[in-house]
């Protein structure tokens, strides 16, 4: 899975990256995680509040650190 975490590098964005990595590892899901820090790219994805998460090209989350349950949901039932 292709996972992108969008954010300018604030503490919440780093927490989101750590959480996604942790949950994916715990579920045994192989992901390729990249951080998107450029404002232009974040805006182009239509995200207005960071941190945001994009999975396989689809925005699944924006505006704050997602809850652990929500992250687990992405890896249990990956959005089509």
């Amino acid at each position, binding site marked *: 899975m292709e996972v992108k975490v969008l954010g300018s590098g604030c503490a919440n964005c780093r927490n989101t990256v750590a959480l996604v990595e942790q949950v994916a590892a715990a579920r045994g899901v192989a992901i390729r995680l990249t951080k998107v820090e450029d404002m232009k790219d974040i805006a182009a994805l239509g995200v207005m509040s*960071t941190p945001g998460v994009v999975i396989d090209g689809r925005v699944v989350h924006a505006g704050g650190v997602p*809850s652990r349950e929500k992250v687990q949901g992405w890896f249990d039932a990956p959005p089509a």
Partner: protein
Amino acid sequence: MFGTSFSMNAAVMRWPGRNPRAFLLLGALAWFGLYRMLAPASEAIVAALPVDRASHLGGALQFFLYDTPKVLLLLAGIVFVMGMVNSYFTPERTRALLAGRTEGAANVMAACLGIVTPFCSCSAVPLFIGFVQAGVPLGVTFSFLIAAPMVNEVALTLLFALFGWKVALLYLGLGLAVAIVAGWIIGRLKMERHLEDWVRDMPRVKAGIDGDGLSLSGRIEAGFASVREIVGKVWPYVVAGIAIGAGIHGYVPEEFMASFMGREAWWSVPLAVLIGVPMYTNAAGIIPIVEALLAKGAALGTVLAFMMSVIALSLPEMVILRKVLRMRLIATFVGVVATGILLVGFAFNALL
């Protein structure tokens, strides 16, 4: 959003998930009960300690033991409610409400939405672009960007808890006034051409509302999440602020600061704004300083102007905004907002 994540949430928080209304009602009752117990509890603790209640130390201790849980309880309660309210006002929804409106009434709306829309200064740029892309006028966008960090529930709760509802209400009214008028003026100045080129060239989008469809228990969870995040972050500042207040309680001469930050010194307001602009801290971090200044006899208008300029205008935010705005527009933004805050300080000192 996903069925599985929802059922997991419900499993983690069974009770609020199953019966959210009853949970809210009982939670509110427990909160009020606790709040009423604080004063007798603090007196009982001081009475049990080997200090004279009538002494300076006894008074300071009682003040600290009563005010700390009181302020934290108030803060937790209001942040929880605002966390639930915030879940109705996502930035996307706020944008849809503002898109395509003409200036004037929209500035008022934007400033008010700034209070209830969750906002973090690290999102200022994507939010700015998102608004402009959807056709929200520049001045209206600024009204939102000025109000969102300055007038927020943490600042208002702390002002209310420590200085009374009049100060909190004045801060609310004047903060909104500065955001509305400053945004309107920036709109009048027609500064769209001072946006960076790539921002103007971004494709227009149509603002639609993405119904998040959160259930009541989901909103309760959002409330708890913001309590964890906000109260978890600001409590040390709150305790420091109250400790300073308690320490000053009767120890420092009241008129200590009055000579150079009092009402008679007209230059104290511009000086406070000048010092405040480059400083940056959140609403809670500034409270200990405000507490110390007021207790030592600084004028209220001067102190509020200082607080507004610290929260609303900051160097790091300017650096972030520089990515989308040219210097000319940033300078105008700072100039207009600082002037507004200056007027607020002067008006306050003259009226009170």
